[in-house]
């Protein structure tokens, strides 16, 4: 039913079909998100969720802690980590083939939980350009918003390139 779209959208508006479809799609988005969250984590337990059950069930289990950011220098070989939930744990050991994270560097670690809020690091990856990534992202969104505003106010400037028509 392509005629209902595009140039003849008025017809769609009259019958409310466009808005009915929008509500249906929005409902699918919400249901899809809920289902993805439920299914993607069926059986997979995060460190936060595990610690909520207590220390013992998490012992020697393997976890992935992503998006960590160092804000100081190592003290006595151990690093203090605050998870989003406010839980503080200590990272012990560091892989020889991965450079030590300097202050402000974002990184991720995989390792085993040792108990008493201590975590043995088995693998790690640094993301030293993460900060620049964020700045570039904000800049691009800003430029995009300006472009959308200009296009909305002035209309599209879709004059064809003269060279394409000889």
């Amino acid at each position, binding site marked *: 039913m392509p005629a209902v779209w595009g140039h003849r959208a008025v017809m769609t508006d009259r019958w409310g079909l466009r808005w009915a479809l929008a509500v249906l799609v929005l409902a699918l988005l919400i249901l899809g*998100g809920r289902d*993805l969250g439920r299914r993607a984590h069926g059986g997979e337990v*995060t460190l936060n969720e595990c610690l909520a059950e207590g220390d013992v069930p998490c012992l020697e289990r393997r976890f992935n802690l992503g*998006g960590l950011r160092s804000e100081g220098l190592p003290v006595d070989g151990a690093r203090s980590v605050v998870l989003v939930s406010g839980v503080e744990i200590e990272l012990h050991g560091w892989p020889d083939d991965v450079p030590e994270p300097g202050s402000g560097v974002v990184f991720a670690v995989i390792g085993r939980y040792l108990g008493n809020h201590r975590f043995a690091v088995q693998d790690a990856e640094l993301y030293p350009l993460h900060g620049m990534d964020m700045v570039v992202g904000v800049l691009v*969104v800003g430029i995009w918003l300006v472009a959308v505003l200009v296009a909305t106010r002035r209309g599209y400037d*879709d004059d064809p*390139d003269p060279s394409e028509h000889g």
Partner: protein
Amino acid sequence: MMIRIRASMADLLTHGLSAALVRGGKRPDSTLLWLVSGVILPDLLARAPLLLVHGLQHRLGWMEWLALDDDRLITAMGFPHTPAGMVLVATLIALVLPASLTRSPGRWRVAGLLGGGSLLHLLVDVMQRHLEPAGYYLLYPFSVERWELGWFRSDGSLLALPLLAVLWVVLNWSWLRRVRSG
């Protein structure tokens, strides 16, 4: 040393340039604007809210009632970053936009460009590498298995920016030169 959790977001300039490169040497027009909008949408909808809320929680102490340590919630918010979610978001936006904005290209075309841009975003993201278990839910809702090619770090795309920018200039040199010469 104090360490805090931060969410990760891909480099949006590389994504934007990928959309421009797909169009070859054509001058920027409304098609490119819709395509770039599609390229930006997945991160804007799935990543930016997490970064914003997390920033508010840790910098200002606001919105602490929202449990961002809940991985189910974080994964659910990532639905617009899946192919199925992208198609739904593109369709929803094309449906709710006023007719004045969609009259020229038409709603189907707007939905197609937004969806195509979003899928292009995912194509670039899939090339990234994260510590496992990581990757993208490419086949959701049929599977929740994750895939990625692992060709470069998630922040490594920034290193390719100069090359992509030069490539864009070369492809578009013809009309850029005419604009410059007036």
